[in-house]
């Protein structure tokens, strides 16, 4: 306990207290005006460490979400191109069934053969489908049409490179189906162009066995191939959609966490501001009393 107080000591105490109170009011005001509880590392070093980690995750999740959105449009485009492809094969199947009918005249068969050849060119066209100027089935040669329209067939050398991207931490997924797989199931089945050409030739030649049996068998094999490719694409779409909705939830949850660490709790901050302002005003009122009177004021 101090037994004697210098005049300046009172003023000094008052000033130190008022400075403190001013700083405390300014602190809450800053929280309120910026809406942020953490404005620089020292405000909450531990919280900021967490917040930066969450921002880092959030950033990654957003990049993956972007990748998923892009992948989904690529996969949908692939699916619809494969759908067109399947329709062409179905038409070819119908025509082959018609053409295998022995009661048809040679002219009628020749007309069917012509349509069959037209379908062949159409296959090349759907195979050259592109998205944003990039060929869907071109492998990593996205800048080159994978199918040759002048001499129907694939452009050699066939690029079988995969378009890979990350759709989650460490989950690299390819989104493209390459031209060689669209061409046919492989094995003993000739490619789709050769199959259609051979059917057309057989129609012209009147070889109904080649049309009705071998041709149809091969077309079935091709349709199965395309169906399985579509299944694969659909499975991928499914996968990224699931991941995407998970990311959407993650994104909200992480933003929530971030807000809890970084953002000002308005109600609390306003209460705090009122309290601190009251303390400041009280200290000013006390200061006015402390500073003013001395014995000089009472002596005459």
């Amino acid at each position, binding site marked *: 306990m*101090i*037994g*004697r*107080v*210098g*005049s*300046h*000591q009172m003023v*000094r*105490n008052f000033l*130190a207290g008022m400075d403190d109170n001013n700083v405390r009011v300014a602190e809450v005001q800053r929280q309120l005006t910026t809406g*942020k509880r*953490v404005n*620089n*590392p*020292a*405000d*909450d*070093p*531990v919280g*900021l*460490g967490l*917040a*930066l*980690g969450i*921002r*880092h995750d959030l*950033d*990654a999740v*957003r*990049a*993956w979400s*972007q*990748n998923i959105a*892009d*992948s989904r449009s690529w996969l949908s485009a692939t699916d619809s191109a494969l759908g067109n492809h399947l329709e062409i094969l179905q038409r070819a199947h119908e025509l082959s069934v018609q053409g295998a009918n022995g009661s048809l005249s040679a002219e009628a068969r020749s007309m069917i053969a012509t349509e069959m050849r037209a379908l062949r060119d159409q296959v090349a066209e759907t195979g050259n489908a592109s998205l*944003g100027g*990039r060929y869907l089935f*071109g*492998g*990593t*040669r*996205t*800048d080159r049409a994978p199918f040759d329209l002048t001499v129907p067939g694939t452009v050699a050398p066939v*690029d079988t*490179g995969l*378009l*890979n*991207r*990350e759709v989650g*931490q*460490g989950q*690299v997924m390819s989104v*493209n189906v390459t031209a060689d797989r669209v061409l046919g199931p492989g094995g003993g089945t000739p490619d789709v162009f050769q199959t259609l050409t051979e059917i057309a030739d057989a129609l012209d030649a009147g070889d109904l066995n080649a049309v009705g049996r071998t041709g149809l068998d091969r077309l079935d094999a091709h349709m199965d191939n395309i169906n399985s490719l579509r299944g694969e694409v659909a499975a991928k779409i499914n996968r990224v959609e699931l991941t995407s909705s998970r990311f959407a939830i993650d994104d909200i949850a992480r933003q929530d966490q971030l807000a809890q660490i*970084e953002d000002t709790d308005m109600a609390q901050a306003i209460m705090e501001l009122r309290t601190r302002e009251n303390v400041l005003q009280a200290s000013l009122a006390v200061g006015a009393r402390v500073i003013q009177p*001395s*014995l*000089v004021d009472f*002596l005459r």
Partner: protein
Amino acid sequence: MPSTFFGLSSALSGLMAHQRALDTTTHNITNINTEGYTRQRVDMRAAPSFPQPAVNTEVAPGQLGTGVQIQDFARLRDQFVDLQFRSQTATHGQLDARAKSLDRLNEVVDEPGDTGLTNLLGKFWSSWQALSLNAESPATREAVRSAGVQLAQGFADTRAQLVASQDEADRRITATVDQLNLWAGQINELNQAIGKVVGVGMSPNDLLDQRDLLIDRIAATGEVAVTTPGPNGKISLAFGGQVLVDGTSDTVNPVAVTAGGAVTVGGVPATVATGALRGLIDIRDTTVGGAGGYIAALDALAATVVTEVNSRHAAGFGLDGTGGRAFFTGTDAATIAVDAAVVASTDVIAASATAAGAPGNADNAVALSQLRFVALTIGGQTSTIDGAWSAWVSRLGVDADQASRLREVQEGVLQVATARRDAVSGVNMDEEVADMVRFQKSYNAAARMITTLDSMLETIVSRMGLVGR
């Protein structure tokens, strides 16, 4: 038998003593706002009594008082409180210097913020993700390049801020040392002036105040030790354990700080463990600079970014089919930059994992974006690149927070020490005014005594011996 006029001189001594007392009160009141001023008090005592014993002293009932005498103009100061104050002001100086520098850094790293490295790193990784979607697109390639340029710029800017704070600390060290030597010179001069006054038997109160104030100021920059004043009133002052002002030979040994942070006094190494000088040297050579400082940690991080990005980048191939090229150049946060070849053409950016003819191949871009999650050894610690940066920021935050908290505590402690000193040495206006009234009354009373004596003498001189006239 005392003289008839004896009482007059006694009363006069009262007048004069209280005149001096009032003068001292005036001095106190006028210096109420003078920094370092110590209140003074007139110590009075009764003047020697009459008569003195001697062989032919007449026989009287006792000695007769002869009035009042001024014994001393006392300077109300407590040396122990000074010691406390000086040691607290040294700690405060150190913490204040540290907190100020860290506060500034804390504001400039911009975390959390848009131009902070967290954001720039995030943008950089995400740009590689975007590239993996569209590897042949000049637009996405450009995005990668500009994210790289911004990241390099972010590192360089952050480092420049750190170097600036180091430079500032360095300039403040120089200024503090200059100031310190100036004060030491002034103390030396005051020492000599005090010696002269003490030599003629007087108390140089106001010079002592000035000397103590200068010692307080030096104490805020480092630890001081003051010898007890010699018979001539001079003191010797040690700074960091070495003699700064020598009171016997009236010499000053200048303080200097080497580039390595060693403090010398007159060329002799001194130990300065506290004070503003310590705080500034620590900031310059340990906290910001030095092997374990912020700059070194940032450099280590930048170097890791350069080598890791480059090693993954070199494994891939650009649009032109050439591989083995660097993305970044440089070895630390100051020199990190996007390679000139990448600046010249975005085709150089190695998104592809195969040599040529596969513009859509983005496997290397995927691999590069995955670097974000790879734990590496950065500056002796295992962490991802982003993790190392947030650890860096947290460290700065903890340091700055701790420094300002400690300073706050120390401010309280210093306030108490100031209050204790003030309790002894501070001027209290009420007290002085009360004294003024007291001394004025005494002065008036002494004057009244003279009037009374005068009228007594009047009786003797003018009215006596008129019998029978």
